[in-house]
């Protein structure tokens, strides 16, 4: 959903903060009632994938994107744009090389 998250130390600090809160929100939504928050959970997973990718944690990014894709697939109403976007992200991860060393 967020495209090309830029990388530098300042933004990585902000991503770390974002990641902390998104992870807590994710755990809580899953705990409470995952079925009624499917779309929200998918968006959080999508964003956690973006954050992981920006930090060169590609394997983790792939894991998040795949979980998000699965949930987008079950969402009602369907979200074909989200599905296309996340498939693109998974595809681009395949060819992406780790070129920077992330310090978090």
């Amino acid at each position, binding site marked *: 959903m*967020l495209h090309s*998250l830029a990388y530098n130390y300042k933004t990585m600090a902000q991503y770390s903060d974002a990641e902390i*809160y998104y992870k*807590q929100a994710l755990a*809580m939504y899953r705990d409470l009632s995952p079925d009624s928050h499917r779309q*929200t959970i998918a968006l959080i997973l999508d964003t956690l994938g973006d954050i992981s990718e920006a930090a060169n944690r590609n394997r983790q990014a792939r894991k998040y994107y795949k979980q998000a894709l699965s949930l987008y697939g079950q969402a009602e109403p369907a979200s074909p744009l989200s599905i296309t976007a996340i498939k693109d992200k998974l595809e681009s991860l395949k060819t992406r090389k780790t070129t920077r060393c992330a310090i978090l």
Partner: protein
Amino acid sequence: MHRELSQSGVSEQIAGVLKNLGDNYSAMGQYSDAEVYYKQSSAMYRKLSQNGVSEDIACTLHNLAYNYGVMGQYSDAEEYYKQSLAMCRVFSQSGVSEDVAHVLNNLGFIYIAMFQYSDSEVNFRHELSMFIDLSLFGVS
């Protein structure tokens, strides 16, 4: 007691009306006006509360934070989301509730927005509508 409170211009009803005014001005895009009403509302709810903590204050602070987010004042948004979060946790079961999850989600988005939308309200609002869950506190 009620008469005393209303005579001093402080009551639950007035605080509620001020919050609604804030919601309406925010929805109309008059964010500075909304900010004024949210602040008056939260101040009044605080006066009426015990120990300065209540679900009404948490809700008003959340909406104030959202309003700051739309204005591009992300540090202020962060501050008020955190205050709202702390208060929602007080009213949750062991820190877990729908309210807490919503505020955590919205707070997470603010850190992304801090650099992503530094000068673009339009983009922020677009992403916001997809990312931030507004169903809880009645902001539309």
